[in-house]
């Protein structure tokens, strides 16, 4: 229960019944009145450098010496032992494809002071990819990262239920899982789960432009086309794909969480919604159309 202390929870008092809220306990879950009447980008992440937020890149490894990425807080490689048990060793290989370095570079560019760690789940063997992916995600959740960037997915249905449990467990432990939506018409996971933040691509050049999608399962669109990124070997490339839109949202989550570290994933998603490029312009239009109604954000000022 320690994780809710920041919201006025007093662990010294008698615990609440598991799934209910008696009348006399309402005061005990009072939230700090720090939400403004109108949530703006300036309130959400203005001035934030990501300092204090811990981001994990679950991918092909990260080149630890790339000047556009360094330094890394930690880097491990996940593999399977003889009995299929997962093993996390210090990663001395770096990046086996270049992709993880690109994701880390996107986060570093937007949230320069965020802590970045690498959990490598690719490269050990091709056939074990799904099991290693699950083991790597479980490891990353256990480490208590604030944000886990998952620019990859699996189409293997047997892994879906375990992934679902892991995604929910991350959600309840206040680790935000940011996952790439697939841009082909196939069933893949974990991006389709509602406990993650799923990301597709838009074509705008602004790295901080992101859009809320009112037609899920894809919830947000981040910059994912013609993005200049660092690549392994100290290089820089221009790349496109949802897998590059995802670290843009991860980085914005890191900016918000650095400034508001007590936000739950639900609250973080609400802040993302309220500060999404399309939602902000809709709110501005509504506000300018009705000067007596400055806040077109239903419920946003009530927190």
């Amino acid at each position, binding site marked *: 229960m320690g994780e809710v202390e920041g919201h006025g929870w007093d662990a010294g008092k008698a615990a609440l019944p598991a799934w209910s809220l008696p009348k006399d306990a309402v005061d005990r879950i009072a939230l700090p009145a720090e939400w403004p009447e109108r949530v703006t980008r300036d309130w959400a992440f203005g001035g934030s450098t990501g300092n204090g937020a811990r981001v994990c890149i679950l991918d092909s490894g990260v080149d630890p010496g790339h000047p556009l990425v360094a330094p890394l807080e930690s880097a491990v490689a996940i593999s399977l032992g003889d009995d299929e048990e997962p093993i996390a060793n210090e990663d001395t290989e770096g990046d086996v494809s270049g992709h993880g370095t690109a994701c880390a570079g996107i986060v570093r560019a937007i949230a320069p002071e965020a802590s970045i760690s690498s959990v490598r789940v690719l490269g050990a063997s091709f056939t074990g990819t799904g099991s290693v992916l699950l083991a790597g995600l479980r490891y990353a959740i256990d480490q208590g990262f604030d944000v886990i960037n998952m620019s*990859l997915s699996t189409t293997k249905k047997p892994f879906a239920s375990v992934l679902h449990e892991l995604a929910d467990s991350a959600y309840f432990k206040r680790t935000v899982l940011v996952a790439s939506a697939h*841009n082909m018409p196939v069933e893949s996971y974990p991006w389709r789960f509602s406990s993650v933040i799923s990301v597709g691509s838009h074509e705008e050049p602004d790295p901080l432009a992101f859009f809320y999608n009112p037609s899920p399962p894809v919830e947000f669109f981040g910059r994912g086309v013609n993005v200049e990124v660092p*690549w392994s070997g100290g290089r820089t490339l221009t790349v496109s794909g949802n897998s590059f839109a995802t670290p843009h949202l991860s980085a914005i989550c890191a900016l918000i969480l650095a400034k508001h570290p007590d936000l739950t994933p639900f609250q973080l998603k609400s802040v993302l919604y309220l500060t999404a490029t399309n939602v902000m312009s809709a709110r501005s239009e509504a506000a300018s159309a009705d000067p007596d109604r400055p806040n077109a954000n239903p419920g946003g000022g009530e927190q």
Partner: protein
Amino acid sequence: MTEKSELQAAVAAGVIGSEESFRALLGAIVDVARSIFGARASSILLLDEDTEELVFEAVVGEGEDELLGVRFPAGKGIAGWVLATRTPLVIEDVRTDPRFASDVAEGTGYVPSGLMAAPLLHDEDALGVLEVLDRPERSLFSLQEMELLGLFANQASIAVDLLLRARRAERVLSADAGELAVVARLAAVVDGLEGDRREAGLRLLRELSDTLR
């Protein structure tokens, strides 16, 4: 696949298509992909699960004479990432990536400066990767092209699935793995006959069938 369905597949393959015709279909797909994107080359790589390697199964444009059949580790480079993560991506200036399988490309004298790659997915499996190399430099990549790439990959994965089925069927036809394989071989032989010999073959089979009933 059960022995019965393998037999059916084998008989069907003998009648409706061979490995060569499915390979021609793959060739046609990469040809159209290259043409639509205005690219210098396009290829389809298939995963060999036994060796964990990617194999060039169809190549058009630059390198088409040298790359066919060339293999490299499936866990390596950009195609390996696309295969393992089942996720398409687009990269400009691949030469700067030292882990791109440049030894393969340089051996042919052709090193691409841009690469679009999409996984070939069938049901839950990743069968391989579709690549389009060196789009024209004048054009910035767009999401419309990404969608088009996905459509080609989907079409290619259907063709690849057919090719793999034909190969499995071929194994049933050529090996003595199952005692019913002789029936599949017989079907293929009769299907290859013409004129009076075909008539006679079919008549013989009908009578054999009546006798054995």
